């Protein structure tokens, strides 16, 4: 059983990691948690669902199954929808930056937080109205095979999610360390003023970050919807807390940190909620997994506020 919990924990950690990357990158360049990120994530999933509907890949009320299609065409549809969702989310990210962040770059931090939250709420409510408030079944677009490894059942989707996460991690690390834009991003995260003095177009860098983060979240949204079988307007709030806690725990501003933090959180949640009912004779059930996240957060903030991979915080800044 433990092996199964570990597998499930790692996979859910991977999905959270992809979202946490968005939080961490925006924090890196703007020193601000993008509270609307989870809503962009949810919008990506909704967009993907509506696109599937529009392409007539899914019909009618029971949308967790596609129409008659070969598995190759399903894979093609998956690729198409993922790219489209990523692009849609990137556009939303750009719009968010333009409407809610840039006008407030000189205002107090509070107004930025509120603006972001309001933008997120707007997206959530629009999605609620457009989707009629109900959860939409999301079809599985990848061939499904189950393997047994060390006593745990691992599905092909889980392996795929793990692979994509590693791939995106490597890609992002490559971008950040080997390209000009990556260097610019690192420069802006270290010292915005100095970077602009060195000729870096800070606004452009921020725009790039607001494209990359949401785009990755868009891909994650499609994966999440396939993994959990549904797309619902409250998806964002389900993952939001866990994702930024993962980012903070891992060290906000650090790419490695978000992934590490997310894995840790995922493992803690599944193992904890798996064993807690046993340990407490059913008094505390498995719904309390979010409490673990909060406890982890409080512990980290008390003893190591910079997270696992972050730079030490010198008092205030």
């Amino acid at each position, binding site marked *: 059983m433990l092996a199964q919990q570990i597998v499930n924990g790692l996979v859910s950690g991977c999905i959270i990691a992809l979202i946490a990357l968005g939080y961490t990158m925006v924090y890196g360049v703007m020193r601000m948690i993008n509270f609307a990120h989870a809503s962009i994530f949810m919008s990506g999933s909704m967009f993907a669902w509506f696109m599937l509907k529009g392409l007539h890949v899914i019909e009618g009320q029971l949308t967790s199954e596609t129409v008659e299609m070969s598995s190759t065409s399903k894979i093609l549809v998956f690729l198409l929808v993922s790219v489209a969702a990523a692009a849609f989310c990137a556009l939303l990210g750009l719009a968010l930056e333009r409407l809610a962040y840039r006008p407030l770059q000189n205002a107090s931090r509070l107004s930025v937080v*509120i603006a972001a939250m309001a933008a997120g*709420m707007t997206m959530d409510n629009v999605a609620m109205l457009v989707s009629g408030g109900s959860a939409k079944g999301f079809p599985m677009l990848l061939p499904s095979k189950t393997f047994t490894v060390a006593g745990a059942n691992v599905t092909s989707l889980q392996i795929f999610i793990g692979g994509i996460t590693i791939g995106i991690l490597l890609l992002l690390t490559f971008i950040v360390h080997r390209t000009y834009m990556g260097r610019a991003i690192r420069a802006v995260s270290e010292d915005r003023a100095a970077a602009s003095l060195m000729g870096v177009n800070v606004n452009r860098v921020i725009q790039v970050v607001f494209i990359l983060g949401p785009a990755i979240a868009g891909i994650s949204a499609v994966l999440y919807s396939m993994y959990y079988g549904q797309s619902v307007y409250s998806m964002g709030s389900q993952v939001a807390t866990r994702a930024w806690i993962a980012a903070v725990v891992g060290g906000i501003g650090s790419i490695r940190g978000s992934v590490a933090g997310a894995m840790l959180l995922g493992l803690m949640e599944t193992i904890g909620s798996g064993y807690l009912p046993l340990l407490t004779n059913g008094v505390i059930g498995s719904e309390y997994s979010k409490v673990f996240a909060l406890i982890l957060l409080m512990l980290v903030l008390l003893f190591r506020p910079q997270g696992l991979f972050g730079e030490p915080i010198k008092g205030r800044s």
Partner: protein
Amino acid sequence: MVGKKKSDRSSRIPFTEQAGRWMEERPKPVKWLLVAALAVLIAAMPAFGNWWVRILINTGLMLMCALGLNVILGNVGQFHLGYVAFYGIGAYLYAILASPHLGLHVPFLLVFVLAGILTGILGAVLSIPTARLRGDYLALVTLAFGEVFYLIVNNMQLTNGALGIMSIDKPDLGILTLDSPGKFYYAIAILVALEAFLLHRISQSRIGRGMAAIREDEDAAGAMGLNTKNLKILANGIGAVPAGLAGVLFAASQSFVSPVNFTSTDSTLILSMVVVGGTGNVFGVILGVLLLTILPEPLRRYMTNTRMLFYAVLLLCFAVRRPQGLWKASHRISRIKKDQVRRILEAGENR
């Protein structure tokens, strides 16, 4: 050529500030008359029918919460995104202790005081890990706390899960029992007035000025010798108390509590009242609450589905265009400062 520059517009005094200054400059008797007229108006409200009184009770409770949040948000400048949890703690405390659910019937006043103490301590304790760090982190902790509160309350046996607790006792205050909306209304009105007065005095006191200093520039405040960590914890503690008290009243007036009143959306709602009204300014907050609780009521019939969307867009517009809210804070302080600076400059020029 003298044209319309952007600076012309920003140096014009906003309407609410002009109104505020006009009010201040009225002679004392006129001020007392206005206050008396307001008191009469408030006292006469129940004559308009029970439906209206219920709306006002809700407004009053939201006022208590918003004024409390204003201490944390406006006075100290820390983001508290899970405020409704304190409201819920007060409500559930009374619901558990004074209803057939567990068979306990603890007297109202005892629970009232207990709720205030409990939420005050909890609010302070919650802010301790982040008192050393920047405001962002408190936002995260409070957001998570709010969600965890909802999660716990929705799933625990003690709180009857999603079904909620019913038939909560009406408050028996010895001399009278609050068993009609009208009586609740007066009780809440008195409490709100008391709270607004107390919090306003606190914000004008030495502690309050210290908190305002932290809000404006935390490093400078620290350099001036203020114990920023303790002040922040104090502010969080004081700010949480009204919500607990309001929660108890909420449970008593509704006779029914369920988790659905205490989601993170409700936290954002209270937040929006403070932001739209004017963070840091007691009068501004009152204005914000009145606007956002009374105005949507007539629209409720037409906008049930889009109500939250309306709130969200309104909040977004306010946050982007006028982040300080309708009624800016501490204009009194800045006017005194401006006068002093002007006098110093003039004294220097005349040398």
